[in-house]
C-alpha cells in the first residue's frame, strides 16, 4: 500500500513537472486571460 501511494505521488509530481515545462516553453498553448486588453493583440498597432 505504502509503495503504491509513494509511486502515485512520484508519478503525479513528474506529470505536473512535465506539464509545467511544456507550458513554460510554449509547447502547450497558454490560456488567454479574460482581462486581456487591446495591447495584447497582434493587430492593436502598438507592437
Amino acid at each position, binding site marked *: 500500500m*505504502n*509503495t503504491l*501511494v*509513494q*509511486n502515485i*505521488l*512520484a*508519478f503525479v*509530481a*513528474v506529470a*505536473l*513537472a*512535465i506539464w*509545467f*515545462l511544456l507550458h*513554460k*516553453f*510554449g509547447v502547450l498553448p497558454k490560456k488567454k*486571460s479574460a*482581462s*486581456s*486588453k*487591446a*495591447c*495584447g*493583440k497582434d493587430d*492593436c*498597432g*502598438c*507592437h
Partner: protein
Amino acid sequence: MSKQINVALIGNPNTGKTSVFNALTGLNQKVGNYPGITVDKKEGICKLPRGVKAHIIDLPGTYSLNASSIDENVVIELLLNKNDKDFPDVAVVVSDVENLKRNLLLFTQIKDLEIPTILAINMSDRMAYKGITLDIPLLEKELKTKIALISTRKKSGIDQLKDLIANYKELSLSPSLDASEIDNVYFDKLRKAFPNQLLYKLWLVITQDVNFGNVDRNEVEAINSFKTKSNADLKRLQQKETIKRYQFINNTLKKGQTIDLKTAKDLRIRLDRILTHKIFGYVIFFAILLVMFQAVYDWATYPTDFIDESFASLANWTKNTLPPGAFTNLLAEGIIAGIGGVMVFIPPIAILFLFIALLEESGYMSRVVFLMDNIMKRFGLSGKSVVPLISGNACAIPAVMAARNIESWKERLITILVTPFTTCSARLPVYVIIIALVIPEGSFLGLSYQALTLMSLYIIGFMTAIISAYILNKVLKIKSKSYFVIEMPGYKIPLFKNVALTVLEKTKTFVFEAGKIILAISIVLWFLASYGPGEQFNDAENIIKTENIALSEDDLEDKIAAHKLEHSYIGIVGKAIEPVIKPLGYDWKIGIALVTSFAAREVFVGTLATIYSVGSAGDNEETIKKKMAAEVYSNGDKVFTLASGISLLLFYAFAMQCMSTLAIVKRETNSWKWPMYQLVGMTLIAYIAALIAFQLMK
C-alpha cells in the same frame, strides 16, 4: 468599507519616481508585466488619511506623451483609456527640482487630458546646494495644480503628498494649454467632427501609434467631413505644440523659480571630469569591477557553504526518516537536490545585484554608459547599444528588448545578436561552482585567482560581443544612421531602501522564475535517472553481484547505483551524445547537464546535483561541490580538472544556452532566421573554444 483610488506615478526617467513609489508603498508592492508585453509594471498599496487606500501604479519613465518606445506607449494607453481598470483617479507627476523645465512638458500634457494632476517636485534637499528657490503658491496658481515639495532622501513632504492625493477632488481640471492654439482652423474642424470628445485626447489619437480603447484612429479617418493631415503636417503641428508648451513653461518658471549660480557648489562637474576621463575613467571602472568580483567570492563563501550543507543534511534526513519508496527518493534526490541547486546561488546573485544597484542609484552607471560610448563607436555600434550590453550582465531578455530604442535597424539588429555574449546572471551559478572546483585558492596582489578568473570571463563575454559586432557591421549590408543621447543624472548617496528593494526583487525573480524551471527539470531528470528500459537496468543488482563477488556491501551498492544510472533513460541519452562532447573533456553526465541547461544555463548545476545524488548509494550528506569534486572516470581520473573546467567555462561563456532569449530574439526580429543564426553561430564558437582549451591544457 474603505474606498480605494487609482494613482498613477508618472515622470521623466531619473526623477526619483521609484523612490517616491517606495516611500508611498513600502513593502506593499508587487512587480508584474503589462498585458501582452514584457514591460515592468510596479503596483503597490498606500494608506492615505481618512481611511482612503490608494492603489499606486509606477508607470515607465517617459519624457512626453509623444511616444517613441513601447514603454512610453504603456503610459499613453493607460491615460487615454477610461475603461482600463487601472485608469487613474489622480496622476502624480514626479519631477526633479534641477530639471523642472524639461519635466513640466510632460506635466502640462497630462494636465490637458483633464485628469486631476498633482506636481511632486522631488529632490528638494538639493535646492540650497544648487541655489534654487521656488515660489510654490505662484507656481500652483500658474500651473493650476497643487504642488508637493518632497525629498525621498530626507523623507520630507511625503505626508503632504498623501494629503494632496486624498483630496484629489479639489484639484482644478482646467488645461495648461488650449489645444486649439496649436492650429485654430484644424482643431475647429476636429471639434465639430467629434463634439463629445476631449480635443487634446483626439489630437493624441491622431498623432500617436496606439489604440485608446473607445476612440481609434480609423474612426477619425473614416469621417468624410474631417480629413486628417499628412504625416509631415502633423509633425509640424507637434513641433508647434512643443514650442507653445515651452513658451508657457518658460514664462511660468521666470516668475516662480530663481537660480543663484554663485550659490551652486558643483561637485558634479569635478566628479564627472574624473569619472569620465579618457584614462582615469576606465581605470576607475576597472577597479570597481575588481572589487565587485572579489566581493562576490569573499562575501558569498560562508552563506553559500551553509546553504549547501543544510540542503545536503536535509536530503539525508529525508531519506533516513520517511518510509522508503519512489516519492521519498524523489524528495531527497530530485526535489531537495534541485531546490538546493537554486538556493546556493542566492548569496552571489544578491551581492552582484547589490553592487549594480549601488552603481545605478549613485548615478555612476550613466557615466559608464557615456564612457563606453567611445569604445562602441569604433566597433560600429550605437552609443545606445551600451545600455543593452550593460544590462545584459543581469539578463539578456530585457537587454534584447532595451535595444528597441535604437533607431537604426542595422545597429539594433547587431546589438540584439551580440548581447547574449555578455555575462548574464544565469551564467554566474555555473561559473561560481566550476571556478571553485578547478581554480586554485591563491591570490595575486591581494586579489584571489578565483575572483580574477570570474572577472576575466566577464571581460571575455564583453569583448566577444563587441568583436562580433565589428564583424557583423562589416558583413551585414544594411545602410542606416543613428545618434546618441544620454541623460546624466546628478550624483546621489544611494538610498538603503531602494538598494535593498532592488536586491530583493532581483533575487526573488531568480529564485521564483529560474527556480521553478530548475525544480521541474530536476523532477523530470530524477524520473529519467531512476527508471530505465531492459535487463541491464532492471536486473542491475544481479549483474553487478555476479561480476563483483569480492566487493564489500557499500562498494557493491555504489556500483549498482552507478550501473543503474548508466542504463537509465537519461544514461542512454547521455551515452548517445558522449562522442560529440568527449573531445571537450566532458563525460556523459556533463553532457546531460549541457542538454538540460539549454532551457536555462543555471539548470546545469541542479542537473548534476540530481544525477550525482541518484548515482550514489551512500548518504546524501555530501554537498554539490564535494560530489562534483569526487566524480571520477572508471580509470580513477578526475572528471573536473583544470582543463575540463576551463573548457566548460568557455563553453558557457560563448554558447546560446537559453531558450527564452531565442524566443525574445525571434519576437524582436520578427523572424526565426536571426535566432537560428545566433544559436548556430554561438554554439559553434563555444564548441571550438572549449575544444581548443581542453586539447591544449589536458
